[in-house]
C-alpha cells in the first residue's frame, strides 16, 4: 500500500539500477474493474516524455525499477480509456457515494494485487495536503488519513480530456434528494453528465429537487426528446414550474414532444398562477361513482395500471355528472368496511375544499387546521379538479428549505 504523491517525480531505474528517468505520471485503465489497474507509467527524461508499460514494472513503491535496461522511447500520447492519475485524478473532484458528497482528491492510494498495481482508494484528508506542501522529509511526521475506497467513489468522465467509459451504476444508490444536492453543487457541465447517466425516473425525481435555475439550464441543454421524457415522469406541478422557467419557445417544443395525456395535465396546471392551489395540486387521484360499493372501489384501485402515490382516499363523484364531488372515502375506512357497503354510506361529506385560484398557502393552512392529509380543489360548480396533499403543502409552508439550496450563486 503506497500513495501516488510518494512516487511521482521519483527515479525510474533499469534492471541494473541505471537511471532511465523520473515518474511523470501513472496511467490507469478505466473500465469495468472495481479497482482500476495501472497499465503503465509516463516517464520523463529531461524534455522527453515516454510510455513504459506496466509489464516492465518490477517495483513501483519508493522508486520504480524495470525488468529491462532498454525501453522503447516512443513519445507518450494520450489514448481513449486511459486516465492519468496525477493529471486527471489527483486534485480533482469525485463523488463519494457512501458519504453522499463531493470530495477533492488529495492523494491516491495504490497497492499491489496479484502481481499488478491497482488504484484502491483516495485520501481526502487535509493532512494529505499538508504532507504535500511541506518538504518531503517532514511528510512522514504528519499523521492522519481519510481514505475513501475506490469502489465507493464516482469518477466523472468529463474530468479527463479523453474518451472514457465510466459506469454510473453506483449513482442509483443515492437518494434523489442527495443527488439533487450534488447536481446543484457541481458545475453545470458535470451536473449534466450526472443527469445524463440517470434513468428517466431517477432523473425526474432528482430534477424535482434541483434549484430552479439549474433545472432550467439542464432541460435546455439536453436532447429535447429526453427532456420531454423526463418531464413526463415528473409530478405535473413540478413539470409546470420547470416549463415556466424555460424560454417560451423551448417550453412549447417540449410540451409538443410529451405524451398528449401528460402534456395536457401539465398544460392544465400552467393555467394557474405559481403559488396557487391549482398549481401545486395533484391531478392524479382515484374517483369512483356514487353507486359503487366498497368492494368494487378496492377492485378498481387494484385494476389501475398506475396507482397514485400517495394513495390517501378515493373521491366519490356524482352519477349524472362525474365531475362533481360528492364526498371522499379514506383508504383506512375503505379497508375496514364491509365490501358490500355502498361508498355513499361510509364517505365523508361537507369537507373543507379550496378553489384553484386560492393561494397555495391557504390550502396548506386548511390541511393543518383540519388535520387532513389532502384537500380537494374544486371550481365554482364543485367540479373536482385535483387534490393538494400534505407533501405538496409542506413545500409551500417551508419555502426556506427550497431557497437555501440555491445558496451557491457566488462561488
Amino acid at each position: 500500500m503506497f500513495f501516488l504523491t510518494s512516487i511521482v517525480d521519483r527515479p525510474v531505474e533499469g534492471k541494473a539500477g541505471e537511471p532511465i528517468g523520473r515518474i511523470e505520471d501513472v496511467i490507469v485503465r478505466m473500465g469495468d474493474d472495481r479497482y482500476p489497474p495501472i497499465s503503465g507509467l509516463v516517464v520523463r527524461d529531461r524534455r522527453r516524455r515516454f510510455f513504459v508499460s506496466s509489464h516492465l514494472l518490477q517495483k513501483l513503491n519508493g522508486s520504480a525499477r524495470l525488468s529491462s535496461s532498454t525501453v522503447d522511447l516512443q513519445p507518450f500520447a494520450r489514448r481513449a480509456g486511459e486516465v492519468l492519475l496525477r493529471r486527471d485524478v489527483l486534485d480533482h473532484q469525485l463523488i463519494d457515494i457512501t458519504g453522499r458528497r463531493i470530495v477533492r482528491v488529495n492523494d491516491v492510494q495504490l497497492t499491489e494485487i496479484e502481481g499488478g498495481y491497482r488504484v484502491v482508494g483516495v485520501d481526502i484528508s487535509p493532512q494529505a495536503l499538508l504532507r504535500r506542501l511541506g518538504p518531503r522529509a517532514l511528510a512522514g511526521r504528519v499523521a492522519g488519513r481519510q481514505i475513501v475506497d475506490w469502489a465507493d467513489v464516482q469518477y466523472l468522465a468529463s474530468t479527463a480530456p479523453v474518451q472514457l467509459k465510466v459506469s454510473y451504476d453506483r449513482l442509483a444508490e443515492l437518494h434523489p434528494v442527495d443527488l439533487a444536492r450534488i447536481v446543484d453543487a457541481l458545475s453545470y457541465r458535470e451536473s449534466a453528465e450526472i443527469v445524463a447517466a440517470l434513468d428517466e425516473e431517477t432523473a425526474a425525481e432528482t430534477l424535482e429537487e434541483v434549484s430552479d435555475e439549474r433545472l432550467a439550464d439542464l432541460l435546455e441543454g439536453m436532447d429535447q426528446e429526453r427532456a420531454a421524457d423526463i418531464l413526463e415522469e415528473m409530478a405535473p406541478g413540478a413539470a409546470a414550474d420547470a416549463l415556466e422557467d424555460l424560454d417560451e419557445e423551448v417550453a412549447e417544443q417540449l410540451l409538443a414532444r410529451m405524451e398528449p395525456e401528460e402534456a395536457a395535465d401539465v398544460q392544465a396546471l400552467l393555467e394557474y398562477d405559481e403559488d396557487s392551489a391549482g398549481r401545486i395540486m395533484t391531478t392524479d387521484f382515484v374517483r369512483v361513482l356514487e353507486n359503487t360499493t366498497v368492494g368494487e372501489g378496492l377492485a378498481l384501485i387494484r385494476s389501475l395500471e398506475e396507482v397514485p402515490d400517495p394513495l390517501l382516499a378515493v373521491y366519490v363523484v356524482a352519477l349524472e355528472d362525474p365531475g362533481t364531488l360528492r364526498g371522499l372515502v379514506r383508504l383506512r375506512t375503505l379497508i375496514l368496511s364491509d365490501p358490500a357497503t355502498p361508498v355513499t354510506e361510509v364517505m365523508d361529506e361537507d369537507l373543507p375544499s379550496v378553489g384553484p385560484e386560492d393561494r397555495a398557502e391557504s390550502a396548506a393552512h386548511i390541511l393543518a387546521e383540519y388535520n387532513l392529509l389532502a384537500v380537494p380543489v374544486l371550481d365554482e360548480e364543485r367540479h373536482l379538479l385535483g387534490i393538494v396533499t400534505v407533501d405538496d403543502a409542506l413545500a409551500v409552508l417551508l419555502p426556506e428549505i427550497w431557497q437555501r439550496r440555491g445558496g451557491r450563486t457566488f462561488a
Partner: protein
Amino acid sequence: MRKRLWPYLLALGPGLLAASAGNDAGGIATYASAGASYGYELLWALVLVSIFVYVVQEMSTRLGAVTGKGFSDLVRETFTLRQTTLILLTLLIANVGIIVSEFIGIAAASELFGVSRYIAVPLAAVFVWVLVTRGSYGWVERIFLVLSLVFFAYIGAAFLAKPNWGAVAVGTFQPHLRMDAGYFSLLIALIGTTISPYMQLYAQSSVVEKGVTVEDYRYTRFDVIVGTVFSGAVAVFILIATAATLFPKGIRVDTAAAAARALEPIAGHYSGVLFALGLLGASLLAAGVLPLATTYMLSEALGFERGVSRSWAEAPIFMGTFTGLIVLGAAIALIPGLPLIQVLVGVYVLNGLLLPVELFAILRLVNDPEIMGNQVNGKLYNLIAWGIALVVSALSLALIVMTVVGWFK
C-alpha cells in the same frame, strides 16, 4: 433584427454586475482621491485601466465558458499544490482587505448619518451574517444594488460642476507620469480597485453557473464590454466631479464627508445623505457577498463540505471561515482612530500589488491548449494581455522600490 438583438440583451448581467461592483466604497474613495489630489491628471490612467479590465474580464469569462469550471477549481487542477497555495493565499489576502474596506464603508456611511460606527458596524456584521446564512440574501441584495445606483448622481454632478472640458480632454488623452510615491500608489490603487480579483472570480463563476458554452460566448463578451464601459464611465465622472469641485479648493479626500461634497452641485445640502445612502448600499452588498465568495473559493479548492445551508456540525470549516471573515473585517474596521479613507485606498494599493499573481495565473490557464482547445488567446490579444500583466507588475515593483527608498530618506 429583434431576434438577433435579444440574446445580447438577455446575456447582460454577470459582466455588468461584476464591473459595477468595482465602484464600491474603496472605488469611490480612490476615484475621489485621484480627482481631489491631482485634478484631471489621472484620467488617462482610468481610461487605460478600463481597457485592462475588459481584457482580464474577457479572459476570465472565456475560461469559464470553455471549461465550465470556476477559477479556484481550475487553479487547483492545473497548478502544483504549492503554486495553488500561493495563488489562493494572495486572493485570500486581497479579499480580506476588501471585506475590511466594505465595513469601513459602512462605518463611514453611518457616521455621515450621525450614528457611531461602534454601533453600526457590529450591527451590520450580524445583519449580513444572518441574512446570508438564512438564505434570504437574494431580495435584500437587489435593494442594496439599487441603493448603490446613487453613485450615478456623480455623472450629473460632474456636468453641473462645469468642469474645464479642455482640461478633461488633455487629462484623458495625454498620459502623464509623476515620479512621486503618492501619485504611484494612487495609480496602483486605481488598477487595484478596478481590476479587483474577486470581480474576475465572480464573473467566471456566474458564467459557469449559467452554463454558457463556447457557441454563445459572444453574448457574454458583449456583456463584458457593456459592463466595462458602464463602470468606467461612472469612475470617470466621479473623478471629473471631484476634480472640478474639490481640487481647485485644495480639499483632499480624507473623510467620507469630503467625497460627498463633490455631489453638492447636484444635491446641495442633501449631498451628505445621498452619498451615505449609496455608500451604505454598495458596502452592505459587497460585505455579504465577498465573505461568502471567499469561503466558497477556499472550500472548493480544498474540498471541504460547503454550503450556507449546512449546519456547523456538517460543515464546520465552511461556516467557521465565513463567520471568521465577517468578524475579522468588522473588527479591523473598528480599530479606534483608523484613518478610514487612507485605509480604503491602502487596501486597493495592496490589491494592485497582489494582482500580478492572479494575472499570470489567468494567462497560464487561458493559453493552455489542453484546457482551452482552440480558444486560447490569439497572438495579438496575447501580446496585449501579457503587456498588461507586465505593466501592472512593473508599477507594483516601482511602488515597492519607491516606498523602501522613502524609508531611508
